[in-house]
């Protein structure tokens, strides 16, 4: 339970075995290498060479993954893959695969295909542009060589002009009475609303400057025609249309080729990606080792319970090895690894999402687990939804046997919480909302017999329970804070900061409940006494260390005013009622809509079934999100606020990369 004890290991070994040592440390998955903080540190040359070699392979693997994956059709669905349906391999198999795979050749083939595809695409876009330009120029009756090459005396230009400017342009060219017969204006068919109209002018070379000036003045923007176009627009267009379809066929062909390369190589590339990433992790981890001429020293943290088995596997490598274990020194801050049993472990993620505890701190996981479990149950609070969640998870566990441990724990969290959801659903009489009342009247007596609370008709009762749970949760937090301070010998702080508030709030609650007549009357005196004592301690503690009497008193009152924050904290638990209510009412609304749909003639029953099933699935999804987030907030803000700050460095051992395959040892 709690934060695992770690040992600091110092491992001295001969350089000849450094690769075996690295492999053993990595495959154990239990060693976090201590990296050096010296700025001038240079890694051992042997390891730097290995890193460089691996990086080269990795860059090929990354290139192939990036280029080929979009063309790869994975035969395994993504969800199955996430749930562990991936190839099982050993590092030895991967090593053999790496040795016989010619990555360079695959890269070469891929690059070649990629380059050809690029060339074809450039040509294709050029051809398409020409086709659209030539379609626009189809009004031009002569071969385009008149414009692109010209004859000895005649040349031409094309451009676009606004329809509104055309008449002005015509007039301006016509005004050149002197040159009237030396130019010809040809305009594409257009209608008055057209924005840009194509126009071509053919003219004698002698008057080129004047013609260009007239064109510029009248807003003709020139369109360049590629010099390679010499035939009439229609002839040229036909040529390019043919070439477009030819190029498209070639592009498709290259796409198929790429897909073939992907299909043939991606599975191997994925395996090698994990292999070389594992090696890169390994060597980068080992790069913090110290060296002498012929030995190396690697320091790492290892969980105490794994120390002995690790020693055995290391000593099996050879005799030139010295491994010493020592407890962490008081001034050292080792990483923290949560070590909880099967029941609590799924809740680890909740602590880790916030922040890992310090190595010598308290692990809040077992403390928050029961509360999270209850709160989640109250928020989702429906026996039917619980059965759906539980059934789905059990089916997943039956079907998928290779789920990664972290994912499995997270799913288990919901499996556990479905139990509390079921219990609360039964005692609050919610089964798919009010499904029983709406559609299964014979079961109503059974439902009512099991009901202990009824949020629908008596919400104040559930509100009271929610707030009471809140008080218990908060007080528990205060007691933990108190215990933590006592552990470190801070008696005064424990009394003034935590115990005093505990007395005040518990006292006030007893007092109130006593006044309400729910407990015997002497609880009024007991409660009052506790609250008074608590208030006095808070008042005195707040003035501690303040020499000025006036300020002492002010500080005391300010501290007592802090009780409003406790009021806010407690009221925050009313969300347990609200969210439970929310899921029940959404369920009710869905059943109501289903019932209304059932009245539609002939197909009503079908619509009703669709509405009810679809609606409840939606309701489960949206309510699980809320039931996860809000209880979590109660842990993080209200509960952790009393005693927990985290701030520990999570234990990150040297491990194998398992992005695409499961690596067995």
């Amino acid at each position, binding site marked *: 339970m709690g934060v695992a004890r770690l040992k600091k290991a110092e491992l001295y070994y001969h350089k000849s075995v450094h690769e075996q040592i690295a492999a053993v440390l990595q495959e154990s998955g239990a060693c976090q290498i201590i990296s050096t903080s010296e700025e001038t540190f240079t890694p051992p040359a042997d390891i730097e060479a290995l890193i460089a070699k691996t990086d080269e392979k990795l860059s090929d693997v990354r290139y192939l993954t990036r280029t080929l994956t979009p063309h790869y059709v994975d035969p395994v669905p993504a969800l199955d893959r996430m749930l562990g349906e991936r190839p099982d391999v050993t590092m030895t198999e991967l090593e053999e695969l790496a040795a016989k795979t010619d990555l360079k050749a695959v890269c070469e083939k891929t690059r070649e295909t990629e380059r050809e595809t690029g060339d074809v695409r450039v040509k294709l876009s050029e051809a398409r542009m020409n086709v659209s330009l030539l379609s626009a120029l189809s009004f031009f009756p002569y071969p385009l060589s008149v414009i692109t090459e010209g004859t000895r005396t005649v040349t031409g230009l094309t451009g676009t002009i606004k329809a509104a400017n055309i008449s002005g342009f015509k007039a301006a060219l016509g005004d050149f009475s002197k040159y009237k017969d030396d130019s010809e204006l040809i305009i594409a068919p257009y209608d008055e609303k057209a924005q840009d109209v194509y126009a071509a002018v053919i003219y004698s070379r002698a008057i080129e400057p004047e013609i260009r000036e007239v064109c510029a003045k009248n807003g003709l923007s020139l369109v360049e025609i590629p010099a390679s176009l010499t035939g009439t627009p229609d002839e040229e267009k036909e040529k390019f249309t043919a070439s477009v379809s030819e190029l498209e066929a070639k592009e498709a062909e290259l796409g198929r080729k790429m897909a073939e390369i992907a299909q043939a190589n991606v599975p191997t590339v994925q395996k090698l990606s994990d292999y070389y990433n594992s090696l890169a992790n390994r060597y980068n981890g080992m790069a913090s080792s110290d060296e002498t001429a012929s030995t190396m020293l690697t320091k790492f943290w290892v969980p105490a319970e794994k120390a002995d088995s690790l020693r055995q596997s290391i000593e099996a490598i050879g005799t030139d090895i010295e491994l010493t274990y020592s407890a962490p020194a008081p001034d050292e801050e080792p990483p923290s690894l949560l070590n909880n049993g099967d029941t609590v472990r799924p809740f680890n993620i909740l602590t880790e*999402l916030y922040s890992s505890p310090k190595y010598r701190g308290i692990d809040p996981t077992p403390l928050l687990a029961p509360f999270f479990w209850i709160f989640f149950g109250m928020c989702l609070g429906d026996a039917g939804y619980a059965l759906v969640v539980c059934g789905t998870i059990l089916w997943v566990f039956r079907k998928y046997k290779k789920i990664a441990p972290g994912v499995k724990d997270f799913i288990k969290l919901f499996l556990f919480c479905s139990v509390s959801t079921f219990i609360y659903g039964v005692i609050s009489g919610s089964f798919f909302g009010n499904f029983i009342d709406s559609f299964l009247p014979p079961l109503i007596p059974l439902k009512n017999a099991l009901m202990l609370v009824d949020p629908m008709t008596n919400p104040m009762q559930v509100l009271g329970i929610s707030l009471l749970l809140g008080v218990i949760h908060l007080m528990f937090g205060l007691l933990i804070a108190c215990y933590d301070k006592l552990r470190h010998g801070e008696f005064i702080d424990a009394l003034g900061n935590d115990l005093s508030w505990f007395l005040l709030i518990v006292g006030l609650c007893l007092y109130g409940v006593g006044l309400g007549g729910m407990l015997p009357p002497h609880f009024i005196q007991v409660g009052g006494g506790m609250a008074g004592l608590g208030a006095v301690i808070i008042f005195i503690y707040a003035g501690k260390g303040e020499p000025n009497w006036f300020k002492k008193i002010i500080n005391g009152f300010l501290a007592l005013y802090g009780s409003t924050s406790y009021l806010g904290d407690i009221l925050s638990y009313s969300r347990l009622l609200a969210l439970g209510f*929310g899921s029940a*009412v959404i369920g009710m609304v869905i059943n109501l809509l289903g019932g209304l749909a059932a009245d539609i003639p002939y197909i009503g029953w079908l619509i009703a079934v669709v509405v009810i099933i679809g609606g409840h699935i939606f309701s489960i999804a949206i309510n699980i999100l809320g039931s996860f987030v809000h209880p979590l907030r109660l842990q993080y803000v209200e509960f952790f606020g009393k005693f927990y700050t985290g701030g520990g460095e999570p234990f990150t051992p040297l491990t194998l990369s398992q992005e695409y395959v499961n690596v067995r040892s």
Partner: protein
Amino acid sequence: MEHLGLSLALFGAALAAALAGIGSAIGIGVAGGAAAGVMTEDPNKFGSCLILQALPGTQGIYGLLIAFFVLNKLGLLGGAGAVALTWNQGLQILASCLPIAVVGWYSAIWQGKTSAASIQMISKKPEAMGKAIILPAMVETYAVLALLTSILMLMGVQVG
């Protein structure tokens, strides 16, 4: 004037569904913009982005829930026919709808902004998903409290 009560109550239901729905739509829109931006860089973040984008959507559901609650109370769902309501009772129901209508509207918008910021956060630090979910949830607290207030008020109003 005999239907004034019913009209007031319906106006309340309309406000609850409409304002809270508008708020959620804006909030989800704001968060969705941020999510799309992050996904152009890394499409694999779709799952986490979608969860964060969905968070400001609950206000709309709370509004709908209250609207249904009112319709049910008025007997407008199913064939039973509307209950008779004085204008005073109608006004009481209208008042009961206001907490979720107004708070749902505003809190969803601000929750959407926080979600958008959280989405930006996970684009740089995907491992901070837990924290990224909690920040928008802090805003939602007030929508939950408003929902609770509306429900308790509605339960207190006597009709029929």
